[in-house]
Structures are given as C-alpha cells and as structure tokens.
C-alpha cells in the first residue's frame, strides 16, 4: 500500500487551521493563568457562553456570528472585570486563592454549564454564515472556509494582543504585574486595576473564541469541558503567558490532534492533547519556549 501522502498533507493543513483556532481559545488563559497567575478553569465556560450569544443573535437577526462577537467585546470585558473584582475581594486579598479560588472557578464552570442546559437543553446548536459550507481547493489540499476564516481572524487577534501588550503603557504594566511589583510601583500603576483590565481582556477573547467555536462545529453546553485540558496544555507548552509561544503550541497541538484523528480515529484525539499536557507537566514544566 502506498503511503497516503494526500491524507497526511490534508491532515497537516487541517491541523494548522485548527491550531489557529486553538490559539484564540487559549489567548484568554495565557493572559489569566500565564501572566496574572489566576487559574481560571472556567474560561471554556465563558467561551461556550460566547457561542450561545452568537447563536441567539444569529438565529434571530441573521447577523454574522463573528461580527456579533466583536459587538459583544465590551460586554465580555465588563463581565471579566466584574468576575475579577469578586475573585480579588473574596480570595486574592485574603491569600486564599489556592484552594478556594480554584473551587470558585470550578463552581462557575459548573453553574454556567448547567444554566445553559436548563435554558437551551442538551441539543446541538449551530449558526448560519456564508462561509460555512464552501471549500477552497488547491490541487489535493482542502481549505474549508469555516476553518480558514476563524484561523485568520484569530491570528489577527493574537497580533493585536501582542502589540497591545508590548507597545502600550497598560500592556507593559500587565506584563509586569505578576513578575515585577517594583517596576509596577515605579510606573505608578495600581496592580488591582491593571489585573482587572487584563482579566477583562482575557474574558473578552472568550467572546471571539466562542463565535469561532460555533462556526467550526455545532455546540452544546458540555462541549467546553473538552477544552479545559487543551487550553492549559497549550498555555503550559507555550511557556506560560507568551502569546507567540501560545500560537506555536496551539498549531503544534492542532497538527498532532488532526493527524491522530485522521489515522487512528477521532475518539483518540482528546487523549492526545491531555497526554501531551501530562508529559509536559512532568518533564518540561517551563514549556517548549520556556526559560
């Protein structure tokens, strides 16, 4: 039997596109966990929330889901700021973030998921948009638009975030907030305010990632869970809080998952990302681009 070159090439391209999407899904965690040291395991729940909002608006008004998510950015930013304020007042200030802070986010994850089940049931929901369906073909390589568009928009978003974090005053304060309290004080910035802004941005990315998710696949409330391990795997692999590292790690994971799914069947794909995470944690906790 010939080696299935076409199959492999398609798997790699699909993995690249998937990886671009994973970068958007992980961006929020890279900021919250990687930079702010807040273990927000509820992040995937916020993503699913974003998916459902895109679904509701799309189903009722026919507006493009990604456009909806852009309109929703301020709302998610405010939501994130509010969640951080509660987290800060209840846990961070008292120094109890380790055990109880984790339980808090776990509870949020659970409440969001069950709340969505109560309102929408467990049926899969999907959106309509002109780019869901058509596929570009270059000889034997398939480029489905429903994958390509999220991937491109996601990479654009990562670029904007990286520019914001490295080129603006507040962005640099965010980068300094966990490592260098002294520099922060010299910049005369209030750490709580900086963290609130950063966490708001982190949750805002969930709106966009949520729209991507429902463009790529139908969504039901518990889908988010599959992403918990994935986002942390990518964040750790990418070197905790480095956005370029996040993009690289996301693409790597996307390709590995895609190849696994193509050659061994989709039911094995989740084990790959989580196995990756376990091995990374065990042997290279600083990540591939880590210090």
């Amino acid at each position: 039997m010939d080696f299935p070159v076409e199959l492999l090439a398609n798997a790699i391209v699909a993995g690249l596109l998937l990886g671009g999407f994973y970068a958007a899904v992980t961006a929020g965690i890279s900021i919250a966990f990687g930079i702010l040291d807040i273990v927000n395991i509820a992040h995937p729940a916020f993503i699913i929330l974003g998916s459902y909002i895109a679904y509701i608006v799309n189903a009722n008004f026919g507006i493009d889901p990604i456009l909806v998510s852009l309109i929703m950015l301020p709302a998610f930013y405010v939501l994130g700021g509010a969640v951080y304020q509660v987290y800060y007042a209840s846990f961070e200030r008292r120094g109890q973030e380790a055990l109880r802070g984790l339980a808090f986010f776990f509870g949020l994850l659970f409440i969001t998921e069950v709340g969505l089940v109560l309102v929408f049931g467990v049926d899969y929901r999907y959106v309509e948009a002109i780019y869901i369906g058509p596929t570009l073909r270059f000889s034997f390589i398939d480029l489905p638009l429903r994958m390509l568009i999220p991937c491109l928009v996601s990479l654009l978003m990562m670029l904007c975030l990286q520019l914001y974090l490295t080129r603006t005053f507040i962005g640099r304060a965010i980068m300094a907030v966990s490592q260098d309290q002294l520099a922060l004080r010299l910049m005369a910035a209030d750490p709580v305010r900086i963290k609130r802004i950063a966490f708001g941005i982190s949750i805002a990315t969930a709106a966009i990632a949520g729209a991507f998710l429902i463009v790529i696949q139908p969504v039901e409330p518990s889908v988010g869970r599959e992403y918990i391990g994935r986002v942390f795997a990518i964040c750790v692999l990418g070197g905790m809080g480095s956005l370029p590292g996040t993009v690289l790690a996301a693409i790597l994971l996307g390709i590995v998952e895609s190849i696994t799914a193509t050659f061994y069947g989709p039911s094995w794909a989740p084990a790959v990302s989580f196995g990756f995470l376990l091995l990374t944690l065990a042997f290279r906790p600083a990540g591939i681009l880590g210090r």
Partner: protein
Amino acid sequence: MRFWIFLLVALALGAGVFFGARYLHNDYLFFAGYVVLEYLVLATAWNILGGYCGYVNFGTAAFFALGAYTSVAIHKFSPMPIPVLILLGGIVSGIVGLGMGYLTLRLRGAFFSIATLALAVVVQTLITNWDYVGGSRGAYVVRPATVPLVGSYIQYLFLVMLVLAILAVFAARMIERSWLGYGFASIRDDELAAEASGVPTLRLKLMATTLSGAFMGMAGAPLPYYVGYLDPASGFNLAYAVNSIAMPLVGGTTTWIGPVIGALLLGTVQQVATVTISSAVNLLIVGVVLVGFVMIAPNGIIGLIEARLRARSDR
C-alpha cells in the same frame, strides 16, 4: 482506645440507619441512601488530599470510574463478591493515584489540579476505546436478585457502602490525629517550612494521593451492580468531581467531620431535589452552594460553628 470507641459508635449508628430503613419497608430509601453514602466516601477521600494537604483534585470522576470499570472487567472475566471487587478497585485507583503524584507533585499546586483534569480525560478516552468493558456503548452487569442473610440486593449494596463509609471516615479521623495528619497539615500550611522541619513532603504527598485515590476507587467498585448498566458518560460524570469538592468545602476541610456534614447535607438535598424538581436543577444547586460557601464561609459549616463558639467564649 478512643479510636475503638469511635468505631463502635459509628457502627452502632450505621446499624441503626440500616435497620431503621429496613423497618420502613421502602426500597427507595436504600437507593437514595446508597448515593448519599457513596458521596460520603468520595468527599472523605477527596478531603485527605484536598483538605489535609491542600492539593485540589479535579479528577475524582477518573478514580471513581476506574474502580467501577475494574469491577466490570473482572465481572466479564468471572463474577466475584463485591468486597473483593472493592479491594481490587481500591488497589487499581490507588496505583493510578501514586503514578499521578509522581508525575505532578513536584509542581506548584495549580499545575497539579490541571493535571488531574487532564488525567480524567485521558482515562475516559482509554476506557471509551476499550471494547472489552463495552467501550462507548457501555456494559451490562446482571446482578443477582437476592443475597443470602441480607435479602434484597439493593439492601446488600447499601450495607456494603455503609461499611465502606464508616471505614473511610474512621481512616480519615485516624490520619488526622496521627503524625501523618500533622505532616499533611504542615504541607498545607507551608511546604518549605515543612521540609526545613524534617517533613519528607514528597513522600507524604504520594501517600495522600494514593490513599485518596484508593478510597475513590473503592467507592466506585460497586457502581456497576447498582446501576446495572455502565457507560463512560455516567461513570465519568462531572457531578462526582463537583460534589466531592463541594461537600468538604461546604462542611469544612480541616477535620473529618466536615466532609461528613457536607455529604449528608448536599447529598440529601440533591436526592430530594432530583425527585421533586429535576436532576439538572439539583446540579445547579450544588454549583451555587459551592461558589456561595467558598466566598462567604471559607471554612465551611464547621468554621461557622467554631466562630460562633469562640465569640461566645470571648464574651
């Protein structure tokens, strides 16, 4: 000496519960009571690592399901009495707990928690792809209608879980008051200071993951006989993870009685809510109670009671 008195009191209480339920002639009580007791074991097991050592395990469902699937695998091979299955399920989950500890406990607490989440999915994927135990379709386990001496099978299962719950609480209480408990508490408070005081922190943490995992596996071992049909979705249900965290946090994490109070309270509320409202709503209740308690009463019900007592004695 006091340990034995405690054990006798616990056994007497247990016997009271069992014969009381039997006197009422209502099998539903046994079905519901079994679940509450199962959660009592899970909450107690979680607390050995989470409450005593301060390491949050999100992977309760994995250890629990490993126990259950060990039973399924053995049942397919040749049926065995449930106490033997519990022992084997405990061994399998204990070994996995030890392995997970080796992989991750050198890292900061948050990484450990994330790794446990990852482990849960890896184990679930492996089980889903393992056809011998039914794969994604699930497996049927035919249970006998009656058991000698006890009578109906559900009463037997209830009795088994009751004994297991008493053993788990007894073990947790014994650990808490021994050198091991002091060592665990020193790890929770400050690992660096614990090392400097001569505490072999890594070895102690491995003991905690092993013990905690083993009890979770034991709680899961009788599950296939209770449900009659087991598939990955029910064995790995996230409700196990949420409850096993919520119950100790609601009751109080530093003593053995906290998880007991939390499990009896939350477990009973959920059983009532499942019957009277719906199972989705009862899960929502658990989530809200968990978030509410960690925010408002960080030391749980026990903490509230202690604060009340202290305020009274200060007056």
